[in-house]
């Protein structure tokens, strides 16, 4: 079920009404409703894969409780290993099996050995990367004695399957989300209103920015040879705004919907295109994933505690694994690698934490912001391209400078209109975000008048007909 679908428009008010009708009863009733509605939300896409969520839920619930009573370190390690194997095993099979088989065959064929191993027609279950990481964080935190395991299966199942963030995050931590499902929720009008404003803002980012950008981006990336260097460059920039609008829009809607249910989810994006260097970009982009990798991969590897070489190794591992998390394709690994390389000079010069306490930006920092955006845009080409070869060709076509024409964006009234929509909507986005950055806010805060303005923009500039799927669903 998509957030911008009629199905969801019907689904949400029904669940919302039932949820708050149950508030007088024990919290288990509300949690049971969350679980049932979340399973329904997921089954709308494909009911067969519900079994995977239920399996992960049961495994980690049992492991968590066993970890509490396990009296030896070896037994605790064994239990943690069971959870890791079960969760990562499923993720590995559904997401990476074919990639490894194909890469293995290709590697041998380069030295003249033709292997005959057949690949499988595997459907990637929506959201598997997200809920797997979420449940893993619970087990690891219990193992590390950072949190107490829950003995309430309804509470735990609600934590794993909570529908607003089930399929595309934010990847919540048990420490933040689990206690919220353990305590009584009271309806708070201010929280709910802030949720509605965030939903409106998220819909604007998705339906106006991302889906209008998709109109050009899909055409350009599917036929790169037909476009001038300038058109390709603008196409790459538009993809940057498309993926930001798409993914952060989804996160905003998820956080907003959660607030309607009295649940506070973590911030997932913090105005990343106002970043002044790559390190800051990664503190502002997909925060729930980057902090997950920091806590469960970078720090266990040693973080920055060892010598410089070891720290650099750890950074490269994290970025490459992060790229690979996005998809089973070399393009994502290269994308991660590019970010690691861009991060390296900051790490060596010890400037990777320069802007950690200063969100507000100054006009003189504009060149740094533009350079960071440019670097991120180049990396996005690998993220969007079908193959590394296509991405290389795309970049080659840009730098070979075969023309400055932007005719493809204006050569019909429809294209001109879409171009206008994009320019207007990006300007609105940047103005609203700039104000929020300068006020040191966590999110764009809409007043009533601004919300009405944004809703009008959505109605008359949004893509309602044939909208694009959320990009991060494929991960």
């Amino acid at each position: 079920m998509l957030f911008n679908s009629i199905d969801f428009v019907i689904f949400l008010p029904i669940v919302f009404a039932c949820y708050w009708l149950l508030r007088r009863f024990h919290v288990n009733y509300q949690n049971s409703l969350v679980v049932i509605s979340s399973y329904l939300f997921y089954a709308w896409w494909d009911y067969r894969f519900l079994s995977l969520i239920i399996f992960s839920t049961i495994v980690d619930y049992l492991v968590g409780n066993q970890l509490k009573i396990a009296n030896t370190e070896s037994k605790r390690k064994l239990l943690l290993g069971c959870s890791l194997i079960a969760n990562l095993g499923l993720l590995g099979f559904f997401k990476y099996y074919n990639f490894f088989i194909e890469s293995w065959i290709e590697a041998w064929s380069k030295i003249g050995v033709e292997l005959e191993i057949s690949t499988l027609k595997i459907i990637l279950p929506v959201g598997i990367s997200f809920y797997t990481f979420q449940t893993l964080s619970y087990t690891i935190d219990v193992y590390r004695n950072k949190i107490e395991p829950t003995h309430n299966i309804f509470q735990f199942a609600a934590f794993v399957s909570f529908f607003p963030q089930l399929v595309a995050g934010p990847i919540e931590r048990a420490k933040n989300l689990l206690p919220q499902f353990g305590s009584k929720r009271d309806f708070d009008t201010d929280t709910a209103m802030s949720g509605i404003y965030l939903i409106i803002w998220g819909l604007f980012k998705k339906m106006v920015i991302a889906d209008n950008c998709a109109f050009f981006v899909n055409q350009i990336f599917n036929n790169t040879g037909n476009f001038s260097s300038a058109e390709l460059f603008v196409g790459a920039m538009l993809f940057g705004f498309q993926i930001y609008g798409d993914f952060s829009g989804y996160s905003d809607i998820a956080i907003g919907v959660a607030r309607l249910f009295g649940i506070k989810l973590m911030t997932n994006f913090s105005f990343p295109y106002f970043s002044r260097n790559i390190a800051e970009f990664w503190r502002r982009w997909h925060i729930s994933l980057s902090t997950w990798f920091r806590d469960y991969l970078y720090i266990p590897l040693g973080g920055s505690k060892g010598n410089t070489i070891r720290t650099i190794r750890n950074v490269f591992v994290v970025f490459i694994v992060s790229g690979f998390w996005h998809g089973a394709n070399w393009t994502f690994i290269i994308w991660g690698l590019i970010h690691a390389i861009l991060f390296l000079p900051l790490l060596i010069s010890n400037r990777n934490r320069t802007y950690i306490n200063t969100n507000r930006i100054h006009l003189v920092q504009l060149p740094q912001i533009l350079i960071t955006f440019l670097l991120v845009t180049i990396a996005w080409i690998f993220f969007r391209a079908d193959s590394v070869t296509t991405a290389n060709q795309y970049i080659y076509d840009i730098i070979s400078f075969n023309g400055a024409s932007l005719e493809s964006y204006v050569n019909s009234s429809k294209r001109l209109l879409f171009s206008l929509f994009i320019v207007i909507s990006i300007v609105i986005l940047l103005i609203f975000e700039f104000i929020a950055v300068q006020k040191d806010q966590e999110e764009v805060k809409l007043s009533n008048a601004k919300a009405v303005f944004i809703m009008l923009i959505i109605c008359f500039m949004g893509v309602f007909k044939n909208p694009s799927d959320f990009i991060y669903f494929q991960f």
Partner: protein
Amino acid sequence: MIVICSALVALISYASLSVLKKSAFYKPSYLSQHVEPSNFDYIILGASTGLTTLNTELIDSLNHTKGINLAMDDTALATQYLMLQHFIYEGKSTDYCILAPSVFDFDVTDSVMSGNDYRFMMFNDRDYVQNHYSTFDGTDANLLKLSRWFPALGVAYYNVEILYPALQATVKPEKRNRFDANGNYVYPLSSSDDQKINTSTTFQIGFKNPWLMKIKALCETNNIKLIYYISPLQGYSVMAAPQINEVINHSDVLQNKKYFYDDIHVDRKGRKKVTELFADRLAQIME
């Protein structure tokens, strides 16, 4: 907030449809508001093939007749039936109706709504338009149907196709969307070489589309003589079912690639050549 926003959206939507209804932008409005004659010798109904193949201006100059091209691109026979209803509702009459749909549409039996049916949205207070939308299922049809009472649904869904043309029409009410004063449109000159088409695949059409019967019945009720027209195809020859009498079959009259814009559409040269042939045949029929 919700009330203010809903009111504004409703107001803008209603205004957009009102402006478009009075404009010449889409053909249904053009026919309703900007076409003065009410009696025609012939009208052309159809899809993009009818729109771009037959030039009524040339036909009229050759035959001394009065005709109008009411064909619209990306439309199926159901929409052409709707256009005929619209034509009659507007109090206009014709002796002949030339039906020139996509050749493949003659035998289509499953009914799917056309992509450009939103162009009748400003007339959805009329029963025949509402009945047309009610014939189909799916999001598009349901929204068009509901926009009779909630214009915002249709206008927001078709914002690019309705709201922005309405803005253009506010400034320039006479602007037409890719058709001239006689309803015709032409593709530019073909870039194909002067090359004879050597091979031709033949197929038969059986006129099985159920909408054909409805169009025929409506024509008979209004004393309109119906003529089916099969437009030129590149490399194909069409055989019409023998039981259908009034067919002008031009599927294989153009045997050179230079006349074609693409496989199913002629270019400016092709249109002139075919229109002359058509005018001659129409004159014979009218005699």
